[in-house]
């Protein structure tokens, strides 16, 4: 399955929704994460204070980004870390390839990095003869299946254990029909250990980059980033410019909320701080813009860069849970995907993959105003004359209609009457896509206006 941009979100969601039991299962699995998150957040009396500090700290950093990036680079140099700057994904990939080619790297072990996904780095390197092994179990599963991630924290959440079993039987030689997660995980452990031990270089994403230390922080539960980075002599870390924090104290704030908001754990199993290469080794950090400075030019979009990629907004989103990660026309799905990826969606449908319920904004550990940003994207699309599938032609009419009291009152009383006396089968076709998976509403006896005049007027 690819993230081709030829179909709208609604169309791709429809494909996912064909298997109703899978949709229920998907929704429940993610809601379980949301419940764990609620328990973890509820157990800390200072949770709301941490969100507030996290938000203000990220805003402070984003508004002093140039200063912190330069400070970070200088301190990296003192720690013998090489720093590279990339304007976009293409430059990022070119830099990575140059470093790897210089060291004659044939096999690269990679731990989860949504940035390298955003840059489409794997195919770029593979075309140049470098084998790229994703080492996070979920990432490895979808890599073997030839799929992109469908979630930013649990990338294979859309697959059932039987499907993983079949895939591993095919690719890793596990027993046919085996679907026990423990057995399959152990098989992956053995397979990936061989990859770690034979890799020429390792690459990881960056959860936080600490400006005043010149250090990067990488968080995983599996330890794959550390098994990777600490075996071969060459380690690379890719980071967006938004990953900078001023100091260790600020990193500590985010370390308290990241895992709690993602999976409900008090902290990830490993939170590793790299402040220089291992003895005799080399450490490179690639700082990537790829559209982030453009987002900073818009006051509302800029706040999306406070995101720490916990995935909490995906888990709570009623649309994501029922439409799956592949229905969004961007590498990152869900509310945060809409916020940071709407410009890349040529069907212009992503900002409408949202009910504006605001649940994402309420769970966000750094208070990214996601619903506000998504709403803003709708405005930007309208202003650019890029409203999707007919919205451009009928929305102005809807606006005129709703602005006229007479027209609205008249047609509403007709609608109430029709709902009462006409059979549903006759009315349903008029409700369009809205009515496809919904029952028609029960008509109230009178308009709210009439009720108000009678009872409160």
């Amino acid at each position, binding site marked *: 399955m690819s993230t081709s941009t030829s179909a709208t979100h609604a169309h791709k969601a429809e494909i996912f929704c064909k298997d109703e039991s899978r949709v229920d299962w998907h929704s429940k699995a993610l809601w379980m994460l949301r419940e764990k998150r609620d328990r973890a957040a509820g157990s800390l009396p200072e949770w709301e204070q941490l969100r507030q500090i996290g938000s203000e700290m990220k805003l402070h950093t984003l508004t002093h980004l140039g200063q912190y990036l330069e400070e970070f680079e200088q301190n990296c140099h003192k720690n013998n870390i090489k720093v590279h700057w990339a304007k976009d994904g293409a430059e990022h990939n070119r830099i990575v390839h140059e470093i790897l080619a210089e060291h004659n790297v044939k096999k690269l072990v990679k731990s989860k990095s949504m940035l390298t996904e955003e840059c489409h780095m794997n195919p770029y390197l593979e075309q140049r003869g470098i084998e790229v092994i994703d080492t996070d179990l979920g990432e490895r599963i979808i890599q073997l299946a030839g799929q992109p991630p469908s979630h930013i924290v649990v990338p294979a959440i859309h697959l059932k254990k039987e499907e993983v079993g079949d895939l591993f039987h095919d690719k890793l030689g596990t027993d046919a029909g085996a679907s026990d997660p423990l057995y399959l995980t152990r098989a992956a452990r053995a397979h990936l250990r061989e990859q770690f031990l034979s890799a020429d270089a390792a690459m990881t994403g960056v959860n936080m980059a600490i400006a005043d230390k010149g250090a990067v922080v990488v968080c995983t539960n599996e330890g794959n980033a550390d098994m990777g980075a*600490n075996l071969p002599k060459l380690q690379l870390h890719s980071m967006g410019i938004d990953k900078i924090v001023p100091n260790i*104290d600020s990193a500590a704030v985010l370390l308290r909320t990241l895992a709690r908001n993602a999976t409900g754990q008090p902290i990830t199993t490993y939170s590793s701080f790299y402040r220089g290469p291992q003895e005799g080794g080399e450490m490179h950090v690639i700082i990537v813009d790829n559209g982030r400075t453009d987002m900073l030019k818009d006051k509302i979009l800029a706040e999306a860069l406070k995101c720490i990629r916990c995935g909490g907004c995906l888990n709570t989103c009623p649309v994501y849970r029922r439409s799956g990660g592949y229905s969004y026309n961007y590498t990152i799905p869900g509310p945060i995907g809409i916020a940071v990826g709407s410009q890349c969606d040529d069907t212009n449908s992503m900002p409408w993959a949202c009910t504006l319920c605001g649940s994402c904004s309420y769970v966000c550990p750094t208070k990214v105003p996601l619903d506000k940003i998504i709403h803003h994207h709708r405005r930007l699309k309208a202003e650019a004359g890029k409203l999707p599938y007919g919205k451009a032609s009928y929305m102005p009419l809807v606006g005129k209609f709703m602005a006229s009291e007479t027209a609205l009152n008249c047609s509403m009383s007709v609608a109430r009457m029709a709902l009462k006396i006409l059979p549903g089968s006759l009315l349903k076709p008029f409700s369009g896509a809205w009515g496809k998976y919904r029952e028609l509403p029960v008509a109230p006896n009178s308009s709210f206006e009439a009720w108000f005049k009678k009872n409160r007027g």
Partner: protein
Amino acid sequence: MSSKHDILNALKSAAIAPQAMPVIKVAPRIDDLVGQFEASLNTVAGTLHREGGLAKLQAQVDEQIAQGMQIISMLDGIKGNREVTDTAHQLRDIDYAVIPGDLGVAENGAIWVNNKNLGHRVTPFICENLFLVLEAKTIVANMHQAASKLTLDSGEFGTFIAGPSKTADIEQALVVGAHGACSLNVYLV
């Protein structure tokens, strides 16, 4: 250099007005730090041994050696049967590693480990099982206190370890033992 220049230049037209850095002052929960630490360690699938200290650990190590296990000890006072190898890769068959922790965090059960005590950086990850040793007096309440105490000199590597390696990538079923250590026992001294 030109990309760096371009990025820094583009940042000059950022739209939000400069915001002040907030004061990070969060009240720590300081009652029964060891008890809190033990409860947190349990939730991340680790085990705390409160009594017995190094003697209990050495007995455990001896028992494992008697069963033919390969044990490397990075702690003075605990004797294993393997030495630090020339290359990190040669640690691939280590069954147990004994490593001193620098500080523990009560709120999440994490223990800070510094590469000064690791031989090779990969030691706590490549071993099949991990024994960490922690002085009770080094346990702090939360990550804010930990941040103010942790040492990370230029060129170093350090990591907070909270339990054994784990994953839930297959149908959200928690499996302990992904790439790193499959079990974690912490001995309090």
